[in-house]
């Protein structure tokens, strides 16, 4: 179980106000309570991905939801394809 504190420790450079905004926008979806969110490994990597898109690839926050939405669709398709056994 990954708490806020652990998340900040594991992801260098993560600003609390950024994280709060991303959660509010639904870019990051921790489990449970608003006052004590609990993160899974996928959430940690998701936060790293967003930081990387924004800081290293200069994807600004306006474009972020578009990029994330496309990525989410691609991964949803890939998971479905794999379920159907069409990809080895």
């Amino acid at each position, binding site marked *: 179980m990954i708490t806020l504190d652990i998340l900040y420790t594991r992801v260098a450079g993560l600003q609390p106000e950024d994280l709060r905004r991303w959660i509010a926008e639904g870019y990051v*979806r921790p489990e449970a309570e608003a006052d004590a969110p609990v993160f*899974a*490994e*996928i*959430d940690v*990597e*998701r936060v*790293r*991905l967003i930081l*990387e898109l924004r800081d*290293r*690839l*200069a994807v600004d926050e306006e474009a972020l939801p578009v990029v*994330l*939405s496309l*990525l*989410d*669709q*691609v*991964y*949803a*398709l*890939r*998971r*479905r394809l*794999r379920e159907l056994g069409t*990809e080895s």
Partner: protein
Amino acid sequence: MADDPYKTLGLSRDATPEAIKSAYRKLARQHHPDLNPGKPEAEAKFKAVSAAHDLLSDPERRGRFDRGEIDAEGQEQRPAGYGGGYRRHADAAQGERYAEAGGFEDIFADMFEARGRAASAPRRGRDGNYRLAVPFRSAVLGATERLTLPDGQVLDVKIPPGVVTGQVLRLRGQGGPGRNGGPAGDALIELEVAEHPLYRRDGMDLRMELPVSLAEAVLGAAVEVPTPAGTLRVTLPAGSDTGRQIRLRGKGIAAAGSRPAGDLFLTLRVVVGKPDAALESFLRSWTPEHPQDPRAGLEAEA
């Protein structure tokens, strides 16, 4: 093993920091593992590009590399390049957490539907998009306007009263022909209603200014007023002043369906006209019955 970082980024050795950053971003966007899932070569390339950038974007390390003090791997620290950590999760079952709410099933269904549909299946024709200039009067009363399409075909477009600029009319079946027995597409016609020098639209009402002479204003008169539906005789009451409004019920935008017709509002404007000796001499000797300062109260509001 690492290649020359300059070569990896496609740069010469005297590249500016800006050029390094821009080359890195271009390549990183192109090869980012999350944008190329299922392509291990993209990931490898991305790592190489990231490592090259890490080395060259740090002036100190770049200098040491240029002087041959460190090799292309840098060594001091593991390159901060993205390792595809997110993809490992997103590709697996827990990736469901970030599934798009709705929409995706449709994409999926579309994909298979498109694949499964035989080329011989009926296809609906394309919709055609056109623009049509509508005279002001036609928009007020309704009319049938003729639209000539680029291919020479002529469409008679029925304009209902009350249309506005930007409104789109759809003519079913007047677009491109269907294939294999499919239905024809629709013609989508965007209207552009002309302005009018006399009338101004106000919703379903029309407004116009009506000039009247001094005598007509003071004494009252029956005057002829041009309206979109034809000339009307209108009685002006005696003592009408500039700014007085006269409402001609039902003479605005024509009724359509259950919507009643709008009204035409006339706003009077008294025109004194050319100098007139008799009028001047009368006014000099004239003592008003009810003296009044038309500018009373202006001061207070200024």
